[in-house]
């Protein structure tokens, strides 16, 4: 029981990280119906920037992570302006290929500038051997609980921005009907640019949280991106709350559920944690086959 509870908190905190990245995917998807495959690369680079600010320059880690996220917001805004906006947004293939290209460029630059060896990365939360609370014999570590707290804060923040600010209103308008948004005077290019920056900021924070658990290298977000993509697909690619819940579900599947199935269901002992990615891919396939809009996504009906 205590092991189960402990694994569950691990699953939830992993899920929270997938959730934050999934939200960043959803922000772009809502507005453009595009998957931004560079999101993982942006998050990875954000973590390296946090490393520069916090470890090399000696700023507090929280400040370093936030600065890293801010730098990535600026970088993403530049990417959108130079590499994305010139292309016809209704023609998805070139833009998706460009996001792939950006992901590889970011990885290459990170490897070139920051080296290829794994670097350990601290947690912004207390993470010593005794930093935990014990409930029913389960050790709930602060570094794990903190990640869930960050997810809650970030999601609250994005809802505030989208629902209470003018740029948020413009962003929702562009997401809902781009042509009509122009007709009320919204500059769609600038608004999408804001979306890219907001998504990259989310990714940057996620990168700074994940790096502690995986170590830092130029590919550390790859696997996380797949899980986050699964989370966003499961929750509904245009639903922010769906992305969060999808993230938490994927986290729980990965942590308590998969090991339990392996340990207790006869014939499933092959289901080691190496197969978690496979499970994520199967989940993406399953959702797309059975319920393409996901759990909370809107099924778009075109009135003709």
């Amino acid at each position, binding site marked *: 029981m205590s092991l189960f509870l402990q694994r569950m908190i691990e699953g939830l905190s992993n899920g929270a990280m997938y959730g934050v990245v999934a939200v960043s995917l959803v922000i772009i998807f809502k507005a453009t119906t595009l998957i931004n495959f560079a999101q993982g690369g942006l998050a990875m680079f954000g973590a390296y920037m946090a490393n520069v600010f916090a470890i090399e320059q000696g700023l507090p880690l929280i400040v370093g992570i936030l600065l890293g996220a801010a730098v990535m917001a600026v970088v993403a805004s530049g990417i959108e302006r130079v590499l994305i906006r010139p292309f016809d947004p209704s023609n998805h293939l070139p833009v998706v290929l460009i996001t792939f290209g950006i992901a590889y460029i970011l990885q290459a630059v990170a490897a070139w500038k920051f080296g290829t060896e794994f670097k350990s990365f601290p947690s912004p939360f207390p993470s010593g051997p005794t930093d935990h609370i014990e409930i029913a014999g389960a050790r709930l570590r602060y570094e794990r609980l903190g990640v869930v707290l960050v997810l809650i804060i970030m999601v609250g923040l994005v809802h505030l921005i989208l629902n209470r600010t003018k740029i948020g*209103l413009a962003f929702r*308008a562009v997401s809902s*009907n781009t*042509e009509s948004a*122009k*007709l*009320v*005077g919204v500059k769609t290019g600038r608004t999408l640019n804001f979306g890219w920056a907001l998504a990259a900021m989310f990714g940057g924070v996620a990168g700074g949280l994940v790096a502690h658990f995986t170590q830092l290298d130029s590919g550390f977000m790859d696997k996380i991106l797949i899980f986050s993509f699964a989370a966003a697909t499961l929750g509904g690619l245009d639903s922010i709350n769906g992305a969060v819940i999808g993230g938490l579900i994927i986290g729980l599947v990965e942590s308590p559920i998969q090991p339990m199935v392996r340990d207790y269901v006869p014939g499933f002992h092959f289901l080691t944690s190496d197969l978690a990615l496979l499970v994520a891919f199967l989940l993406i396939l399953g959702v797309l086959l059975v319920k393409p809009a996901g759990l909370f996504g*809107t099924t778009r009906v075109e009135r003709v």
Partner: protein
Amino acid sequence: MSVLEIQDVRARYGQIEALHGINLTVDEGEVVVVLGANGAGKTTTLRAICGMVSTSGTVNLHGTNIVGTDTADIVRMGVAHVPQGRGTFPELSVVDNLNVGAYVRKDKEIGADIDKWFEIFPRLAERRTQLAGSLSGGEQQMLAVARAMMSRPKVLLLDEPSLGLAPLIIDDLFKQFASINAELGTTMLVVEQNANLALGIASRGYVIEAGEIVLSGTAEELRNDDGVRAAYLGV
């Protein structure tokens, strides 16, 4: 003085030219109607004014040529466009649709304006928190008109507002157009197939066929024109 003066405007979708050099003017405070069949170029005329189709020629708004100007900037110059099929934001609430209609404004009277349009269209007030996508066709059209008026436009472009609506609702809607024009002095350019109604609120009109203006005159003249009567009035 003409608020809107269109001179030799050509518009094209890719290789296909949809407007072959049209001329029309709309004076301050006037309601002008453009009549035409499906595919004649009515919608394209409005899209050419708003910079939403590749256009050549001159579109003078208060004497300034706006061909090539960004749509969002044309809205800032006082043009509001209610597109065909309403063009509301289905995933936004009714009140947010009105809020975003005031996107170009910076004054403090946006809330008061929303209340005013809720008074004019009480059915929208009842549905203020509902998503626009859940409204009926008539309610959507009311919302589209109210949203366009939220920018306090000098010129309102209406693209077949009667399309797909029940006759009673259409009558109400056109009464509202007439009173908006009378009370706020908003200049209007309406494109319609429903000639009877449109000529009822218009002072002048044009008939467009295959991308060319073939006839123009006062509402009275058009109503008595044999060609118009046969083609658009069904008499």
